[in-house]
């Protein structure tokens, strides 16, 4: 009984901490940047009191960026959590598996060869690219004895993303000598988001989020092994298919608008699991919260590190996330590698 309350306490502390991280990041994200804005203008932008009209317009320009950061971070973290649960592998993450790069490759091809230009078309292409990459990488990793082990999965993912990255470079180079848009499809950036982008993305993400809500209990059962899960009355194949679909959908739709942002899906679920244990009903919502906070925070950090310009959020998450990846790899036993 005492242990139970202790556990609940820990969860509450984590929850509060993540909410605080998100709130602070959101506040910094709207106030901080090339032009500093004070609290009064922020409130004025939300129709509370009045402030300097110029500062108010700066804030309202930053609001969609912040909102998109929250949604994208949550989606990426959820996608990572789903992939880790599905592959039973601590280093599965949309970027490590090359799924993000696959999505961005397809979008880049669509832009250059099919001349598409609307967000909804981007999302479909990104989804196709992400699914194909996910299937290929997982297939490549599960050939041979032992199934898809950590190292095989990571290597297959790394190989696939190197291959796709060089293809992205080749497609982008002739069409684009402008660094900003060239970099965009290499390392993601949430700077260009507008409200209409977010609205066009919304239905896909809502489907993904709803899938997550319904999947959580079944994923807990799946963690016990396929046999036990079947014994408990689950349709294992269906659960796997739906969670793969949700995981790919979430990261693909984010990538379609933000470019490939890495390591969020690796870091956040890992740290959440350290505290909550493997219960997906806790891991999923807390990961979403943490991912949102971290991505918005990384975006602010990018503005600090890159000032007077700004550093793409994808680079910041790589700088933050790669050490975590190394840390996780060091924890995995040699025999598992």
């Amino acid at each position, binding site marked *: 009984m005492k242990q139970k309350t202790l556990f609940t306490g820990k969860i509450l502390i984590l929850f509060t901490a993540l909410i605080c991280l998100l709130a602070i990041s959101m506040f910094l994200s709207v106030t901080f940047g090339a032009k500093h804005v004070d609290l009064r203008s922020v409130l004025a932008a939300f129709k509370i009191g009045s402030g300097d009209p110029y500062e108010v317009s700066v804030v309202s320009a930053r609001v969609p960026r912040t909102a998109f950061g929250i949604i994208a971070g949550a989606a990426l973290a959820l996608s990572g959590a789903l992939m880790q649960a599905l592959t039973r592998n601590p280093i599965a993450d949309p970027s490590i598996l090359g799924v993000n790069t696959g999505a961005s490759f397809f979008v880049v091809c669509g832009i250059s060869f099919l001349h598409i230009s609307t967000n909804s078309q981007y999302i479909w292409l990104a989804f196709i690219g992400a699914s194909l990459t996910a299937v290929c990488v997982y297939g490549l990793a599960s050939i041979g004895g*032992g199934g898809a082990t950590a190292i095989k999965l990571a290597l297959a993912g790394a190989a696939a993303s190197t291959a796709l990255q060089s293809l992205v*470079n080749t497609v982008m180079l002739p069409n684009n000598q402008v660094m900003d848009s060239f970099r965009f499809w290499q390392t993601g950036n949430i700077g260009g988001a507008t409200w209409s982008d977010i609205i066009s993305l919304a239905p896909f993400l809502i489907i993904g989020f709803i899938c997550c809500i319904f999947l959580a209990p079944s994923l807990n059962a799946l963690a016990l092994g396929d046999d036990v899960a079947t014994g408990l009355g689950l349709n294992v194949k269906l659960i796997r298919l739906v969670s793969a679909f949700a995981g790919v959908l979430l990261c693909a739709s984010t990538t379609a608008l933000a470019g490939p942002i890495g390591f969020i899906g690796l870091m956040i679920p890992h740290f959440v699991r350290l505290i909550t244990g493997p219960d997906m009903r806790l891991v999923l919502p807390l990961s979403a919260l943490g991912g949102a906070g971290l991505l918005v925070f990384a975006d602010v950090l990018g503005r600090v590190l*890159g000032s007077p310009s700004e550093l793409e959020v994808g680079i910041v998450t790589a700088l933050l996330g790669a*050490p975590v990846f190394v840390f996780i790899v060091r924890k*995995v036993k040699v025999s598992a*590698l």
Partner: protein
Amino acid sequence: MTDQVLSVKAGYKKRNLHYALICMVLALLTLSLMCFELIYGKTVYTPAQIINAIKDTTGKAEGYFTIVTLRLPRTIIGALAGIAFGMAGNTFQKLLRNPLASPDIIGVTSGASVAAVFGILILGLSGSIVSIMAVVSGIIVACVLFFLSKGRGFSNGRLILIGIGAQAFLNGLISWMLLKASEYDVPTALRWLSGSLNGVKIEGAGLLAVVVICCSVCILLLTRHLQVLRLGDDFAVTLGAAPNMVRIALILLALLLTAFATSISGPIASVAFLSGPIADRLTGGGKDNMLSSAFVGSILVLAADIAGQYAFSVRYPVGVITGILGAPYLLYLLLRMNKKG
């Protein structure tokens, strides 16, 4: 002597001859690619014109600028960088007995690149100081990688995974520095992230040549010991080799090669990774293939550079082409490794 010994000896001789022959062919191929790189271009020059221009000290010969300022440094540095990456990659792969353990996959090349970018773009340095910084940084990154992958028993798998992480981190650092230095244009970024020979200067070639020659001679001399090491440490000690000394010396030499080449041409993608296995294929794999992989590296860089310049409607830097070559081989390698289990 029995017949058996004689036939073994004859086979040994035959294989040596075969190896020497392949090395000769590869060397000839390298030379002809170098000539092609000098001759071919927007204006095609005759060999006589090229020799005239190179001999000329006044700078007034026909095509002096194109040949001596543009094509010559590109050719020489391309060939030297290819030798450096090919040999260094092969050394790493043979020492760690894993084709995936080449310096460009485990992040050592990116480590050297970080220091080069820092020196050139942030501190505004040039010349040998940058190369030395790149070497030191490459060595530090290699040490950190080995240290990190050591905990509770060393494993190649862990080294490679940690290398992938390190690569992501170092590339992030490079992108950050590119932004900070306001050199945020596509060519510079591509040079430091995937390697390019565009705009290389002849000043870099002298030092690179000295380093490449010294290090490759040392590596070739140490190859004998490396072959003994393949039998296992116990055997090697009995046969009079000092396994750890040989390992450290070889890794240091390979790092010197990689770092010097990287500080001039950037980390030309996949050359270190591809050269060794291609050389193994050509010679049958019984040897250590140091010399042949050096030539293969050189051929790869020169051929990719020529293809990048003339084969497409757009000029691609060499690293983009070699990167495209490397990726499918990596996938194929994984497929084969996984099948074996």
